[in-house]
């Protein structure tokens, strides 16, 4: 998995609440059997008109925001479907960090599987960062220090230690868990005796 350490650049403001995963990547793009190539379809219905032409005033279609690696968005970002295509499309577009006041649980988890850092800030802090993003002020995100700096603002954010470590080191989660194979086998042996109906062959 890609590592994440620090990030510098302008941030795209998207002041909409409840941005759901259908908005991030509509259903017609879920038919792929690959993880890559979805960036061009990110926010498809907001980015393109019915004829497939770019909608010029949508933030990610305007310079310099079309090069943003950071997104600042309204509350409850990533709600709805579990589709990992949402973080895949963000990543493929180049976005490596999303800042909001809250994230839906599954989306939040999915970000960490893909080297994307979701940062939770307070409503007041979001207002400040939204303004800074709109004014094209450069953001500095430092994961080891857990800070977002933009102009005069310096914000500390919380992140669970294990998630931080995984991003910093780009660890393979399955590889880690397979290190506990003995424990998994022991668990299965125990339950086969105690709850045999769960181990009947399907």
């Amino acid at each position: 998995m890609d590592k994440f350490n620090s990030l510098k650049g302008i941030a795209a403001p998207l002041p909409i609440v409840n941005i759901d995963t259908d908005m991030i990547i509509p259903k017609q793009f879920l038919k792929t059997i690959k993880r890559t190539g979805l960036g061009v379809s990110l926010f498809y219905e907001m980015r393109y008109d019915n004829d497939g032409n770019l909608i010029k005033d949508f933030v990610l279609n305007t310079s310099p925001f079309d090069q943003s690696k950071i997104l600042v968005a309204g509350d409850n970002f990533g709600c709805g479907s579990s589709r990992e295509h949402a973080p895949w499309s963000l990543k493929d577009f180049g976005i490596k960090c999303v800042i909001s006041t809250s994230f839906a649980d599954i989306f939040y988890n999915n970000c960490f599987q893909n080297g994307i850092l979701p940062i939770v800030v307070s409503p007041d802090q979001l207002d400040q960062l939204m303004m800074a993003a709109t004014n094209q002020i450069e953001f500095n995100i430092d994961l080891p220090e857990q800070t977002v700096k933009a102009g005069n603002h310096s914000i500390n954010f919380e992140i669970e230690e294990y998630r931080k470590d995984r991003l910093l080191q780009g660890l393979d989660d399955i590889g880690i868990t397979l290190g506990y194979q003995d424990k998994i086998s022991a668990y299965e042996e125990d339950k086969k005796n105690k709850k045999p109906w769960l181990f009947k062959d399907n």
Partner: protein
Amino acid sequence: MSNQGPKTLFDKIWSEHLVGQREDGTSLLYIDRHLVHEVTSPQAFEGLKISNRPVHRPEATIAVADHNVPTINRQNIEDPQSKIQVETLAKNTKEHGIQYFDLMDQRQGIVHIIGPEQGITQPGMTIVCGDSHTSTHGAFGALAFGIGTSEVEHVLATQTIVQNPAKNMRISVNGDLPFGVNSKDLILYIIGKIGTAGGTGHVIEYAGSSIMGLSMEGRMTICNMSIEAGARAGLISPDQTTFNYIKGRPYAPGADHWDQAVEYWSSLPSDNDANYDHEIIIDSSEIDPMVTWGTSPEDVVSVKGLVPNPSSAQTENKKKSIERSLEYMGLKPGTKITDIKLDKIFIGSCTNGRIEDLRKVASIVKDKKIASHVQAMIVPGSGLVKKQAEEEGIDIILKDAGFEWREAGCSMCLGMNPDQLKPGERCASTSNRNFEGRQGRGGRTHLMSPELAAASAITGNISDIRDFT
């Protein structure tokens, strides 16, 4: 969460499935059943292949194609990408020895319909699927939640998932349900009350006499939409209604283990003095038949109500959000909900595509015709639901009324297959999401119960079942 003292249903399932702590402090939770479908699994199988990892316990996984599949002429999937996805699932499951219900198998259907239908879903289990509506299975007192594709790969490779415990929330609904109010109205009302982020980080346990009085079908509708309240999962205590539903189904415990299983299942309900991080109590008499007016499942109103006015919003953000929704939905503030004219009716989905839902619709539209300006479609949740409905003559009643009778699948709930709304079309839908573009670009979705959708099909406007004769 301590091991001592009173426990919730969630706490009990959690501690039963804890394989251990990893060094990074996370918990490794054992997964009893893994449901797999064509859209969120190909990249997971590809990941296994790249890393040369086997499936840890193929017999704990069941696969079915549901999201993409056509509901007519299904021998031939015209969309080449959909076809590849379905074929890829068939190939991957064969390669790894995973049970797969193919498109011609009568057991095929929406993954969250067939799990319970086959008796795969049982109390006290942990169940995951790369689909957010996995919460449906919580109706049986199973801890069931949606996961991303990377986690699908993790479960395939290890039969475990990395988790941290959720917080406990209990929502109790008490009292007899008023006439015309059912489980869909209950859950829409709850989402309206707590909001789409109201359950974030929590598992919601639904309790109280209104909930425990529901059939398994009704309970599934409630748990299904827990994700629309932002919750990780929904749960309902297993009871005799649950056991009766499971008994005799193909994958249910057989006679050799049935008593042992029931004894265990009976130990699962939350202890009386268990502690909840958050508790909400609702009197069912305050609930009306509910309808969504906007583009988030929290945008709910009584069918007797009005489209809201943005100027009444308490915050600037909320005002903007209402304005955006109304513009998308093509609605004016103050419009009576029952004055909203419809183009399409969709009855189906993992929320309301079960036999009980179809029976209700049939009882309402029997000997009537749908309004001449609407197109109405019924998509049974599974091949077996369809078969049963046909045995009961429900299909004849529905077809006589003017409904299209389709093959099983997710269909227009998300419009990945050819069943979609056109821009500007307005639909009464028994599904679970009214997001912008969900049922087709520019499509306008009003979520409601099967009863309301049936009544609305006949009148052509959103209609209150209580006024309907």
